[in-house]
């Protein structure tokens, strides 16, 4: 099944892009977006590769569902943290460089 292959490729590219976003982008919300993209890429690979080799595999579907729940929980939590952080400091990205003493 070649169409699964397409999604696998998309997944791989999403992984790369998402990772780049996570590492390079400093704005927290964007980073969180990138994290979600990365997650989607991984999930695509997780489902797509077995689908390509053996056809649809319900086990991977279940795994991805679990993964999505975890990702959602993490995203929602991160959003709460980011908003509170912004609320307290007015920052939307983490300061870089050496941490000053507090």
């Amino acid at each position, binding site marked *: 099944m070649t169409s699964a292959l397409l999604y696998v490729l998309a997944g791989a590219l999403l992984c790369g892009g998402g990772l780049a976003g996570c590492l390079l982008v400093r704005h927290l919300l964007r980073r969180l977006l990138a994290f979600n993209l990365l997650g989607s890429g991984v999930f695509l690979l997780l489902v797509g590769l077995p689908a390509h080799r053996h056809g649809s595999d319900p086990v991977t579907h279940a*795994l991805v569902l679990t993964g999505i729940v975890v990702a959602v*929980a993490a995203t929602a939590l991160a959003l709460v*943290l980011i908003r509170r952080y912004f609320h*307290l400091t007015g920052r939307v990205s983490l300061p870089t460089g050496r941490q000053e*003493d*507090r």
Partner: protein
Amino acid sequence: MSSLLMAGLLFTPLAWAVLCLLLAFRAARLASVIGMLLQMALSLALWAWVAEQGGFFYHLGGWAPPLGIGLRVDGLAVTFVLLTALVGAACGLHAGLYLDPSRPWQRYFWPLFWMLWAGLNAVWLAGDLFNLYVGLELITLAAVGLVVLGGAAPALEAALRYLFAALIGSLAYLLGVALLYAEFGSLSLVGVGEGAGSASPAASFALLIMLFGLAVKAALFPGHTWLPPAHGIARAPVSALLSGLVVKAAFYVAARVWLELGPALEAAVVGVLLGVAGSAAVCWGSWQALRQPQLKLVVAWSSVAQIGYLFLLFPLSHGVPEAVSLQAQQGVTLQVISHALAKSAMFLAAGNLILSVRSKRVEALAGVSRYLPLSLFSFGLAGVSLMGMPPSGGFAAKWLLLQASLASGQWWWAAVLLVGGLLAAAYVFRIYRASFQEVEESDPFYHPPRSLEIIPLVLALLALGLGLVAEPVLSVLGLPFGGEVLSP
């Protein structure tokens, strides 16, 4: 019998998390003490069972792997379960006295604490790659929650750093799992290990990426930047839990995966790479610890350094004779245990010291040795283990690792071990030095209750005594990470 023990072990922390969420701080504290006792008893019983009867696989829900989830209850796993019970109980008891119950958010400490415990147990026992992922995430989120408890800006910043690093690490791990599953069609660690008979590029890449993710989660050198703020900003008992146990979980997974797959995939370069990163961590972490103005940051950076040692396992267990590999595994296991005990003791003691001197800075410790000898003593004893001085567990670990590195002909790791020990001594003695400074005035310190001071002392003594009983402990561990056939 063992089935009930396992059920209890898995059920208790989760159930207590629920219970404590519904109770107010003080009631939850009381409940937690009972829970800790129960958990300790269960862990001990299971440990004794495994020590006597040998390990076994526990099939959750009665479904066998690879479709079901099998827990692998071997010597190593139960030892870590016991260690978790020990350190967890100590940190919990300490936290119960240390945290200020008048703050409304402190009540959430208990449920998060129990969730963390549950996650740790899940990871130690897991025999399934995906289950490990979920367990790791459970740990991560609970840990982040504990760091951020209170929600002050620095805590938020640290928690966000930690959260992002950990999430990326988890996803990298999951990506590896996806690739492995695609290749071998199995999720159980053993199944994948059996499948990986020969070098396969995809599986090698999967291994690499998993190790990368786990290394970030375990705060290995270039990916360590999240650790010091997170462990430095959290409350002392939380830092103790995080440094003592949480980072070990990621390492533990990495080690298990590596030992299952590494030899088959001929991934020597990866091993050396991790070893180099570990060495860099030892040096850089120690150096930073030496320069930190704040006490807890010193301890946190020391964690970065100490974790570096763990990663020497990778080069020392690949392409070497069986005996050497075993030695390295034993050494690293001892290092994990002793560092868990020592570092949690150190954080708890540091917490007491900070409480007493009302400042986080190292200079503020002047005169502490005169008026608060006990906390300092605990701190010092823990430091002994970190330095790898005899008779501590840290020394035993260092000894075994030195032997392994010399026997494998990779003498450069021995140099790392020795230099690391000296650097550790440098930062530990820096604290002593500050605290031995005499002050003229009369006792300016707050004296924490004795019970707060006893807890780190007990942990430190355990870390110290571990070296003396290293052989018996190791003999229970059996083959630390080995894939021996276990009777069901």
